């Protein structure tokens, strides 16, 4: 291969360009790997942002509603019972009839016309009247949510000729728009409502509240248990086979698939202990078992990072080992423990598989008020909406993901700031 007359130096010099190219290639592979990861991240955030941004606005239709006493409260007693069961939908329909008298002649047209406004319009009128019964008999302008199909049309998701609207409906919508009766407003309903079968009314308050209660349970269980276990293992436990086993067990538990924790919850918390399905309490307990190894590992690392000299100085001054730990080691390790706990909670917030196992995937309209109310959670809401056939739910799904990611960003930023602020290098 090599020319026998060539000296070794010449051989090496001849091979240098090839080797330099190989070097550049290798370096490039590394950059490319990071680049692909970055590209994927940008694509993911971009796609979800693009898909979900629309859900934060909602098309609304202005209605000059006359709260007719003869419809809502024929007896005139203003009895809350009567007021809450009254037919507000009829009021909405009558208002639409005033705008489009010609549509009220045929039953079919009437139905097609009322379809344009969400049935939520009636519910919102009811809330207004219940809050202030004095409104009855008055005429006022309300901005009612449009039906999700109308919303999709004005957001440009569905085309006019998609066959989802009749010619008359399009005509009515054009007239509403020409009269300035259509606007796009911030979708506060998304943050103040529970789940709904109607996409324009569906909100994430219920899911946020469920997640909050589940995380609260998770934190209340896993934080004390995890920190105490870590203190024992790091500061007091003798080094022997038994503690080796505990350590291997904890490391291994951190890598057990989350869905298996769900099965444990199903068998023990639901099957054996008979707790309620779909309750944030059970979800939080399962998440706590899942987060526990993480918290133990992080706490041990933080305790380990405190130099032994501090411990020894305290003991040398006459403190017991427990006092040295409680008064010196533990306070110094607190920032690290906090950081680890927040990261553990962030992971628990995004976890879904174990919640499915314990039945936290039901359709729940009411916003949970306590640990035992049936509830969903943010990732659960994402999963349920992702499965829904209505097109408007696709943007709701992405919007719920945006909210979920926003919470995760806040939590992780808090952890980073805590770490930057309080981290000590010894």
């Amino acid at each position, binding site marked *: 291969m090599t020319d026998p007359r060539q000296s070794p130096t010449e051989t090496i010099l001849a091979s240098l360009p090839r080797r330099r190219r190989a070097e550049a290639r290798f370096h490039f592979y590394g950059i490319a790997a990071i680049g692909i990861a970055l590209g994927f991240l940008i694509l993911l955030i971009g796609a979800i942002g693009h898909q979900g941004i629309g859900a934060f606005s909602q098309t609304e239709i202005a209605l000059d509603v006359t709260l007719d006493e003869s419809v809502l409260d024929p007896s005139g007693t203003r009895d809350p019972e009567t007021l809450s069961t009254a037919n507000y939908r009829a009021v909405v329909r009558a208002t639409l009839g005033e705008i489009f008298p010609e549509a009220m002649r045929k039953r079919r047209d009437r139905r097609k016309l009322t379809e344009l406004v969400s049935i939520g319009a009636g519910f919102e009128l009811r809330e207004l009247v219940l809050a202030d019964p004095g409104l009855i008999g008055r005429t006022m302008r309300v901005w009612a949510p449009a039906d999700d199909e109308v919303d999709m049309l004005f957001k440009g998701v569905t085309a006019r000729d998609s066959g989802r609207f009749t010619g008359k409906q399009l005509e009515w919508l054009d007239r509403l728009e020409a009269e300035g009766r259509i606007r796009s407003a911030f979708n506060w309903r998304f943050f103040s409502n529970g789940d709904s079968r109607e996409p324009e009314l569906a909100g994430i308050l219920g899911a946020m509240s469920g997640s909050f209660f589940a995380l609260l349970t998770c934190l209340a269980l896993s934080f004390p248990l995890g920190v105490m276990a870590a203190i024992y293992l790091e500061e007091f436990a003798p080094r022997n086979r038994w503690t080796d086993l505990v350590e291997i067990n904890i490391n291994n538990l951190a*890598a057990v698939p989350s869905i298996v924790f769900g099965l444990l919850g199903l068998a023990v918390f639901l099957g054996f202990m008979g707790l309620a399905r779909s309750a944030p309490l059970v979800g939080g307990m399962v998440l706590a078992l899942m987060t526990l190894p993480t918290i133990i590992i992080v706490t041990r690392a933080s305790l380990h990072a405190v130099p032994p000299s501090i411990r020894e100085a305290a003991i040398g001054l006459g403190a017991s080992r427990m006092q040295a730990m409680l008064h010196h080691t533990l306070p110094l390790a607190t920032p690290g423990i906090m950081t680890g706990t927040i990261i553990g909670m962030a992971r628990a917030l995004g976890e879904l598989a174990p919640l499915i196992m314990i039945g936290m995937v039901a359709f729940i309209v009411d916003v949970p008020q306590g640990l035992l109310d049936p509830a969903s959670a943010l990732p659960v809401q994402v999963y349920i909406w992702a499965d829904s056939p209505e097109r408007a739910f696709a943007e709701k799904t992405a919007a719920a993901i945006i909210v979920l990611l926003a919470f995760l960003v806040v939590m992780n930023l808090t952890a980073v700031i805590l770490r930057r602020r309080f981290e000590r290098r010894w």
Partner: protein
Amino acid sequence: MAQAVAAAERVERSSLLAAPEGRRARQVLGERILLGLLAASSLVAILTTIGIALSLLFETLRFLDAVPLFDFLFGLNWSPQIAIREDQVGSSGAFGVVPLLVGTGLIAAVAMTVAGPLGLFSAIFLAEYASPRARSFAKPILEILAGIPTVVYGFFAVLVVAPFVRDSSEAAGFEVSSESALAAGVVMGVMIVPIVSSIADDVISAVPQSLREGAYGLGATKSETVRDIVLPAALPGIGGALLLGVSRAIGETMIVVMAAGLSAQLTVNPLQAVTTITVQMVALLTGDQEFDSPKTLAAFALGLLLFIATLILNLIALMLVRRYQERYD
């Protein structure tokens, strides 16, 4: 000076010597109790493992009363719906787990094809090439990828990757199902990149600098040093990192539930829809059913399989990483 010493001595006396016997005894007792509490909470982790093992075993044994072990492990047909009623024909053949294992393996293989090279090259870049500034830019990217919930990856797979895979393979003339193993596997692979890269990064950084310097001294370039010296030295640890990645891949649930299919086909074609152990566990437990039906129990049997498989992978991986670290400590 003498006054200060005397004052200090007084303080000393009042706090230590003057402490009544009873208070010290109480303190010792309090510490004992606290120590007991600490020790007890370290048992919770052990109890969790035992709880998982026992509940899975117990329910699986009940499942095996209805379905023979041999049919479960080696059956080629998975259609749990058929066996809801025991008197039905062919109910015993419907819980064959082989198609699920093949599907799980296929998706994990696709995932590792993505995560292996990407994770390793990221780790090599971070550990060997990146300047501190590049590192402070690249590491957060991987950490963010690690922090994204899997349900988000799943939605992304359905929203973007699956249509892209379908369109591009149809353009290339392949027949492709809408829920292909490829789409789920690729997205899962990206999810696993940070796991592989962070462990591989640690492992590569732990290789003693003297080995590199020896190679440089002999005239090797940086890439030659990495390829011929650092990587072979770090091989067991890197193997551990990859095994942990595989373990994550087979236990991952939401991406496959949302992006892979439900139909249990026996195929190794990544363009086909396959199903996995975790998908079937979710399918078996979604909706209302009695706690004792073979369907519910089958989920526990699958859970036991999954638990054993990931346990073995994790133990080997942790052992490899740990033994490797000890070698260079």
